[in-house]
């Protein structure tokens, strides 16, 4: 357990020393969302209708952008080998890296989302659901993304490959996340969708830990 805490602490310290990286992800999130009114027109009703989808899809892409940092830096400078040698199960290592990635890249997106909900005119009733759905959904994105990031270690054009591997697997999270916000926006109960999202998270933790560990072991061989 102390190894997990140490690993998360290390990643957070590294991120805090280069705060620009985390800020870039948030900046991408905001700018990409700001493009939509230019693309589809500024009518408030239209923007309110597509707000949940736009915020979710953009959060997905922002998360994708930060994935290549998850293992690639450690792989390049060799610290990944040392981390794998440590007396900590590789599955736990994967989960620790995911937790750190979520704190660095996922949590800022969740915190920024009300601002974007405001500019896109999302009904106020849906805001708590949007926050809750993103808080449940972005860890899933980090977990699935970790498997993809571990698989492309050492690949040619890994950065281009990663979206092709990860985005199809993101679809269930996107569907459930948007469904929750849409339900809340139209006055229905969002609880079933949030429960399903939670189930997906609970399911993703063991599966991605095992798959990510298998991928990391192969990369380090």
């Amino acid at each position, binding site marked *: 357990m102390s190894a997990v805490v140490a690993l998360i602490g290390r990643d957070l310290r590294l991120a805090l020393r280069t705060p620009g990286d985390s800020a870039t992800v948030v900046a991408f999130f905001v700018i990409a969302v700001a493009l939509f009114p230019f693309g589809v027109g500024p009518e408030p009703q239209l923007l309110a209708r597509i707000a949940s989808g736009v915020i979710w899809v953009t959060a997905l892409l922002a998360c994708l952008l930060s994935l290549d940092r998850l293992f690639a830096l450690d792989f390049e400078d060799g610290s990944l080998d040392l981390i794998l040698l440590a007396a900590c199960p590789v599955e736990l290592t994967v989960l620790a890296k995911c937790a750190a990635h979520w704190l660095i890249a996922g949590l800022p997106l969740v915190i920024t989302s009300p601002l974007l909900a405001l500019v896109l005119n999302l009904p106020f009733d849906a805001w708590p659901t949007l926050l809750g759905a993103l808080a449940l959904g972005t860890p899933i994105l980090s977990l699935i993304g970790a498997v993809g990031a571990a698989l492309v270690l*050492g690949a040619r054009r890994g950065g281009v490959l990663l979206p*092709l*591997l990860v985005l199809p697997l993101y*679809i269930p999270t996107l569907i459930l996340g948007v469904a929750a916000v849409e339900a809340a926006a139209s006055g229905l109960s969002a609880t079933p969708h949030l429960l399903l999202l939670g189930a997906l998270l609970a399911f993703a933790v063991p599966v991605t830990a095992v*798959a990510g560990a298998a991928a990391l072991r192969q990369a380090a061989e």
Partner: protein
Amino acid sequence: MQRFANPGQFLRLAAVVQPWAAGVGAVATAVGLYFALFLSPADYQQGDTVRIMYVHVPAAWMALSIYLGLAVAAALSLVWKHPLADVAARAMAPIGAAFTALCLITGSLWGQPMWGTWWVWDARLTSVLVLFFLYLGHIALANAFDDADRGARAAAVLALVGVVNLPIIKFSVDWWNTLHQPASVMRLGGPTIHGAMLAPLLLMWAAYMGYFVVVLITRMRTELAERRLRALQLNAEQATRMTASAVEAG
């Protein structure tokens, strides 16, 4: 299964199976097409357009079952490090992707006259599209490494993650669809299938299966021959280097 870890054993079996598969496939194609185009009745609503089904539905079956085969090969490769499983997975993925593409294209051609549109974001269409992306990701990942073995193992992990995710995608897409588009296109089943339509369907499936086996074996033999060629070239290179250094020393 372990017996076929020896490529020689596999090649001998493959040489026996391949002509039979080709024969069965060819006969099934001929008979199946005759049934499909002439003997089976036209649908009372869809007319002759229903005959697209005989190309479309078996392609969808193949797309799914080849992905299952891919996952089994991936498990064999990861758990038992079976040397032929990697070769099989690498050979299978493009065939599966081709059947998925065939399914999507014929579905689109069928959708145009029936639904009046080439594409609908219907649950079933969308999940097949995702399956197509999973195939593409698998092919791209398997070819993304300089070390072919590393690519094969990474692709195997992806195939297994994909097979876990496939039902989740399927269900989530179903719910997504029912939320937004209640039953506007769920006419895919059409009328309950009749024996006169089921027979050509099964025949066409047998034809596809024969084609799949023939192409799979050909691709696996090619891959094995390529590996052997590489090994021989490496040996030859080493031999010339050794003689060269011997001449220098002498």
